């Protein structure tokens, strides 16, 4: 597989913006059940601004700079818990490849791990707390163990495991975030951030499929 250039990532971020629009009401509905019903709306507000920023992306912005711009924009526009978490996620992921004009598929697990580490550092949640980490953490374990020579297969299993992790949040009682205060009433509902997380990561998978085919 060819190495990944800035355009690959720009296209992935644009796909995420589409995903945020398409899934807005679903993420919002999930957040309405155990949170404050704004997750989809705020992600859509954030990614609308991401698209505007990408439309005006200076030619000399490198991959790390693009990640930083996306992260900063989400940080600025999304707010709430997921704004800083997704914001740091993208900023830290990009910082892993600072100065590189291209990255290889092999760099991706490291980038995503750095991003997730920053979610952990900021949010202090653990596996099983019913947050986006419940899809990210098991997903990343799978990705790091996968054979990256078939990038599409590797990312498929990554995203599938994340999705499974999201399903697994349903029976959990929340220990972090707004849903925590619900106590046992949070049981039986999917964590909205665990859903948006795998659907955003799926956008990288789509990009890889485009290259491989």
């Amino acid at each position, binding site marked *: 597989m060819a190495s990944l250039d800035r355009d690959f990532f720009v296209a992935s971020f644009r796909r995420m913006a589409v995903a945020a629009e398409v899934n*807005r009401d679903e993420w919002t509905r999930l957040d309405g059940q155990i949170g404050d019903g704004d997750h989809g709306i705020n992600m*859509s507000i954030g990614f609308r601004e991401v698209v505007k920023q990408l439309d005006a992306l200076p030619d000399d912005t490198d991959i790390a700079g693009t990640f930083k711009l996306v992260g900063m924009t989400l940080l600025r526009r999304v707010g709430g818990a997921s*704004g800083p978490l997704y914001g740091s996620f993208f900023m830290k992921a990009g910082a892993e490849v600072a100065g590189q004009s291209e990255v290889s598929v092999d760099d991706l697990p490291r980038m995503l791990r750095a991003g997730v580490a920053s979610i952990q550092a900021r949010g202090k949640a653990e596996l099983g707390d019913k947050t986006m980490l419940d899809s990210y953490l098991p997903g990343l374990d799978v990705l790091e163990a996968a054979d990256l020579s078939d990038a599409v297969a590797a990312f498929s299993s990554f995203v599938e495991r994340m999705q499974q992790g999201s399903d697994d949040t349903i029976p959990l009682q929340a220990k972090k975030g707004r849903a*925590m*205060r619900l106590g046992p009433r949070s049981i039986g509902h999917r964590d909205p951030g665990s859903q948006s997380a795998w659907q955003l990561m799926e956008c990288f998978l789509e990009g890889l499929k485009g290259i491989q085919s």
Partner: protein
Amino acid sequence: MKRLLNDGYDAVEELLDGYVKAHGDVVKLADNERVVVRTTLSAEPKVGIIFGGGSGHEPLFLGYVGEGVADAAVIGNVNTSPDPMACYDAVTAVDQGKGCLFLYGNYQGDVLNFDMGAEMAADDDIRVETVLITDDVYSAKDKADRRGVAGDVIVLMAACAVANTGADLDTVKAAAEKANDHTYSMGVALSSSTLPVTGRPIFDIGPDDMEVGMGIHGEPGIERKKLEPADAVMDEILSIVLPEMQLASGDEVAVMINGLGGLPLMDQYICYRRVHDVLTEKGVSIGKSMVGNYATSMDMIGMGVTLVKLDDELKGWLDAPFDAPYLKQD
């Protein structure tokens, strides 16, 4: 329920634009479109009081920016904490060299964002302290884990009263903490609020049901029950809040009835009446009363009771002069 809006994605910006146009003698936007600041800061330098959180709670937070009240309000998306940059920009806009106090309700998202803002301010050598407001009795067992609801306004009043004396940041912070420690709230909701972007309620609720312990963002409460008459609902709230506060005959409290946006003032005064009568019956006197929409959830039909256990110091703070569009007393 129905709203009168344009594109929901523009609601917050249009709200802020409308607000500063209507109250241009009192407030303006800072160099950040989500930061509402006083047009002129206090002549005597004082600790900067920065109040904030999501939008959709109007008049909270922006309505309390004014002379002797908050110096800035930092505003997020609907029901969503503001971003770190806005928190930081508020600090640089109002700091007068005595440092700033962040006052906001205890929500994960707000903590994340305000803390980042405070870190940025620290890089500029501006000292920022934080007091998290945790008045919502029903939201967690430990006081420190609770959400902030209408108690935000009580804590703000205390902090501002002390800041206005020229006190230093530690003193102002201690006053806010004391006020928070003395403040207990609990509410009920009869409907969801309606989100500007989707035009739809956050959750469904049956025509005869109410949600007990509802948060002001539409977070579900702890229990869904059959709607009861106002007096019965007040009795239930007080049966939880009074033991929590360990109020005894001879104590004095401030009472706030906070309307969540869609509940008529008529109903709010009928609720106040019951709270007054029950407290009087128990020998608890009422040193201050506030009734109205102080911290709303847009069009949510519901209300909360906030009680503040008073001592002379707290009473003095709550009776201080304030002059913001939504908090005027002298």
